[in-house]
């Protein structure tokens, strides 16, 4: 239901361009009504009073345009309350004719369009599948939230308007034409009652009820693009002038790729899409090792970064997209998707390959990270550096880690050498674990390109010219003497 895309009463030119779904329309209505809360001065109260009834009318129409198994009367009660209010407005002439509120008009337009889109496709009494029912409950939750927030915003504006009029009335004993303290107060009471009704409906439903919303099938190339964009951007940011926040964010996203991506590969193995034995014997332990390596590096960086983590906006955008593309496959209506659900949503073989490609980039990224954390230009807030040193490095005998003045003002300071060394070792662990994932996941089909960020081997050093011998195999089962 929330994916229905259709247009009927809009001009043909707009109809062709407008591919927004019912879900998009509901979300836009929700965003517009939130903006109302930021824009509620008392001089807009009359405009809001004119538009509020239309919002409820549009919400009630949308509510009744699709089947309802539960038969909850909340929206009907709010609607009746609004009809009564409308009659009173006509009888008393307040707030009278005039402009409406632009935010609420946007809400009404979106709700009305959603009604048109559903009505043209579905009869309101047609039976719903279980998934359809969950989708409809999600839509009702969103609609009621729109009414709730609209009522709150209108009520807030009316309260201020009424307060100002009472003050004026007390001071001058009269009001200008078109102003009415009594009528605005009556409306305030009714809007408050509607807000209470909406709130009681949402109790226990918001936001959990939104989970049932239908989701479109996964875009096949999304994960591939997200992994590639993330890889490029992470290198770009870390190679420029990264902050500790950038480095930490990179580590957190890589760890998410290891864990959430690991679930996708595990699902593929579970269904036999990829070699289950290779996965269990080699790749799963390698994933666990990489997770631990990222976790340890991240733990130190968390202490070092403090709370003010201003991340490079492009890095933030690419990391957000990578997380979303992983969740699109690995998370579902009930939270964590099972292997069968994941297989319905995506080609698990292709997704596993992309995850593996992303993870073996950890090898090169580990070298780039090592360069970033050992860069003398990298600074951290003094207090955070002090805490990190106390936790992760041995206290020097002769001097404090951080100058007392810097710590007091929490100025950015270069990382103490001991901490730099510790972070460098953690980065080396990431490289080692990434190499193991690279090797263990070779059955998936991805291979790592040699890095330019790693140590350059030009054959001039003595050890580079030595003939390398593989280590002798250790004793195995059946080889004991």
């Amino acid at each position, binding site marked *: 239901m929330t994916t229905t895309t259709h247009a009927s009463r809009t001009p043909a030119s707009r109809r062709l361009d407008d591919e927004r779904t019912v879900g998009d329309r509901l979300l836009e209505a*929700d*965003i517009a009504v*939130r*903006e109302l*809360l*930021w*824009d*509620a*001065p008392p001089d807009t109260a009359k405009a809001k009073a004119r538009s509020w009834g239309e919002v409820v009318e549009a919400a009630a129409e949308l509510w009744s345009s699709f089947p309802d198994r539960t038969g909850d009367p909340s929206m009907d009660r709010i609607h009746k309350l609004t009809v009564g209010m409308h009659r009173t407005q006509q009888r008393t002439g307040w707030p009278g004719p005039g402009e409406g509120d632009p935010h609420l008009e946007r809400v009404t337009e979106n709700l009305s369009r959603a009604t048109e889109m559903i009505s043209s496709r579905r009869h309101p009494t047609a039976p719903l599948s279980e998934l359809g029912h969950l989708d409809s409950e999600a839509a009702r939750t969103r609609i009621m939230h729109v009414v709730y927030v609209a009522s*709150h915003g209108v009520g*807030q504006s009316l309260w*201020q308007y009424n307060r100002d009029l009472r003050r004026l009335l007390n001071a001058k004993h009269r009001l200008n034409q078109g102003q009415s303290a009594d009528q605005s107060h009556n409306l305030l009471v009714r809007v408050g009652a509607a807000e209470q009704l909406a709130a009681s409906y949402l109790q226990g439903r918001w*936001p*959990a009820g*939104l*989970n049932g919303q239908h989701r479109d099938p996964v875009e096949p190339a999304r994960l591939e693009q997200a992994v590639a964009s993330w890889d490029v951007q992470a290198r770009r940011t870390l190679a420029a002038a990264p902050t500790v*926040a950038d480095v930490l*964010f990179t580590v*957190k*996203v890589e*760890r*998410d790729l290891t*864990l*959430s991506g*690991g*679930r996708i590969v595990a699902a593929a193995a579970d269904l036999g899409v990829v070699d289950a034995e290779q996965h269990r014997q080699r790749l799963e332990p390698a994933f*666990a090792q990489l*997770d*631990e390596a990222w*976790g*340890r590096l*991240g*733990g130190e960086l*968390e202490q070092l970064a*403090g*709370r*003010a*983590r*201003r*991340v490079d*906006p492009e890095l*933030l955008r690419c*990391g*957000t997209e990578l*997380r979303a593309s*992983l*969740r699109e496959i*690995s*998370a579902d209506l*009930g*939270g*964590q998707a099972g292997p069968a659900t994941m297989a319905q949503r995506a080609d698990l073989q292709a997704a596993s390959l992309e995850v593996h490609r992303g993870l073996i980039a950890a090898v090169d990224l580990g070298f780039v990270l090592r360069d970033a954390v050992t860069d003398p230009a990298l600074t951290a*807030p003094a*207090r*955070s550096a002090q805490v990190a040193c106390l936790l992760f490095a041995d206290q020097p005998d002769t001097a404090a880690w951080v100058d007392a003045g810097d710590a007091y*003002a*929490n100025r950015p300071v270069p990382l103490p050498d001991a901490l730099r060394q510790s972070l460098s070792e953690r980065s080396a662990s990431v490289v080692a674990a990434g190499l193991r994932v690279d090797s263990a996941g070779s059955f998936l089909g991805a291979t790592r390109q040699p890095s330019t960020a790693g140590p350059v081997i030009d054959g001039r050093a003595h050890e580079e010219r030595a003939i390398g011998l593989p280590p002798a195999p250790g004793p195995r089962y059946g080889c004991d003497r």
Partner: protein
Amino acid sequence: MNDSNPGGRTTAWMRVVAILTLAADTAPPRGGDPNLHSLALGAQIVASHALALLPGEVDGVLEDVVIDVGPAATVGDLIRAANAAAPRDRNGDGPGGAVAVLAALDALVVEAEVVS
């Protein structure tokens, strides 16, 4: 961002950033539920977006923000606490970015409801 109300809108956003940052750091150093890790990363993303709403001068004093959450709070508890602390009512000027951050925070609360 202007700070016209006495309660301090900036202070409220700083509290949101502080709580979300704490939520972002709740993931254990090894193993654990991938969903919780993903949720913690989500908290970091929203925290960074929220911080971008604030002027750079707040960075130095962000560490001093006191947050009222129990020591046993889970990542879901912290995200809900951040949602409750987020300033939602405002008269007058309205920063556009804040609406997007609030929507992202709402989406994160939905994820937290499912996970916890």
